């Protein structure tokens, strides 16, 4: 599903990571500054590796030796950021529809309804992002990413900006997503409890290096 073998120098910090996974949810675990976000941004194509290869679903999207770098917008990924990043000038419904329109996909009412119900965001449709709570915003961001029909969903600390109560409110949605949405995910977090609940495989990062790789039991 996902194959990563990259090196990147970012100022003083050097990132060198290699792993390959068929897991449904790959948990990218590490302290802040371990290079998790940089790694995810490379998978998304927002950051270009200095050397190495990245393959999503068998398609090589980065290969520095062959000069391949597929731009972000053609990678067919979904990305949920810590800070939601909903478009402030669009309503919730328009935000949700954005990926479908940009990819020129035909409307898929069945999928649309399934995701709206799964995330419980039907009642928010006509609101503006500025009028949503943090948890609502994050659920809409999840829906927006999923509705673009990605082949891989990247989640960079999606609960990082929420307080404990809100986190507990969103976690069940993520579990349902894992079990029902059928989209492989890369889930970035520094929270062991979150990853225990969600991940099927763990990639542990420390100071830019992969220190362990395996089932959730590596989170000891």
């Amino acid at each position, binding site marked *: 599903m996902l194959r990563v073998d990259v090196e990147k120098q970012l100022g003083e910090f050097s990132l060198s990571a290699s792993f390959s996974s068929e897991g449904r949810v790959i948990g990218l675990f590490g302290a802040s500054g371990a290079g998790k976000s940089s790694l995810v941004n490379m998978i998304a194509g927002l950051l270009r590796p200095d050397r190495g290869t990245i393959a999503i679903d068998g398609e090589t999207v980065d290969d520095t030796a062959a000069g391949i770098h597929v731009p972000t917008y053609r990678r067919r990924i979904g990305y949920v950021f810590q800070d939601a*990043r909903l478009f402030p000038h669009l309503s919730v419904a328009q935000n949700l529809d954005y990926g479908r329109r940009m990819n020129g996909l035909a409307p898929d009412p069945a999928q649309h309804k399934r995701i709206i119900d799964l995330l419980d965001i039907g009642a928010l449709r006509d609101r503006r992002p500025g009028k949503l709570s943090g948890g609502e915003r994050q659920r809409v961001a999840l829906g927006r990413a999923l509705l673009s029909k990605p082949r891989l969903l990247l989640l960079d600390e999606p609960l990082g900006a929420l307080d404990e109560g809100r986190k507990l409110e969103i976690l069940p949605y993520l579990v349902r997503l894992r079990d029902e949405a059928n989209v492989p995910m890369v889930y970035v977090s520094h929270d062991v409890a979150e990853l225990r609940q969600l991940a099927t495989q763990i990639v542990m990062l420390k100071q830019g290096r992969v220190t362990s790789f395996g089932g959730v039991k590596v989170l000891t």
Partner: protein
Amino acid sequence: MFDISPAEWTAILLSLRVAVIATLVATPFGIALAWLLARCDFWGKSVLDALVHLPLVLPPVVTGYLLLLSFGRKGLIGSFLADHLGIVFAFRWTGAALACGVMAFPLLVRPMRLSIEAIDRRLEQAAETLGAAPWKVFFTVTLPLALPGVLAGMVLGFAKAIGEFGATITFVSNIPGETQTISSAIYSLIQTPDGDAAAGRLVIVSIVLAIGALIAAEWFARRATQRLHGN
């Protein structure tokens, strides 16, 4: 007192036409340049920036004279446009529009640039991850978010264009019905005996137009802030 004569109406309508055309034609260039200055780093950027602001600091008569040299009938660009495209600027209202557009350009670009700079680029990244190619990102995220700034720039540019005097009169002279705008009409009227009342009326018209433009620009700027916060 407030009976506007046909001759005055001619000047007012000409001014409006000149300013509207100048603003509309300058806007796409203004947006492109604002984006370039806000987003790109390239060699000669500060030179380009200075060039854009030049009409603001140069004596208008110099700008007008430079336009005459380059866009006049014998000018390099002017003769080319006249021979090949049939576009003539010299002593025509189109020349007045060109002069006004050039003079208004710095004021038009500035709010556009500021509003583009204020946009959170992470929103554009988010759009890209959703499958939007760069030009789609520009038209669906960047431009709509910058829209209030774009409109504010257009309003300020319009206000400047409608009051432009020095460059216009130097470039296309002061021909009633063709190049005589409100400003040049006032200039003529205060040099004629008994022209005071007519000049006074046109002065009031200019003040109303200018204040209206400032209020509109302020309103658009407030909208910009609201838009960025998603209310």
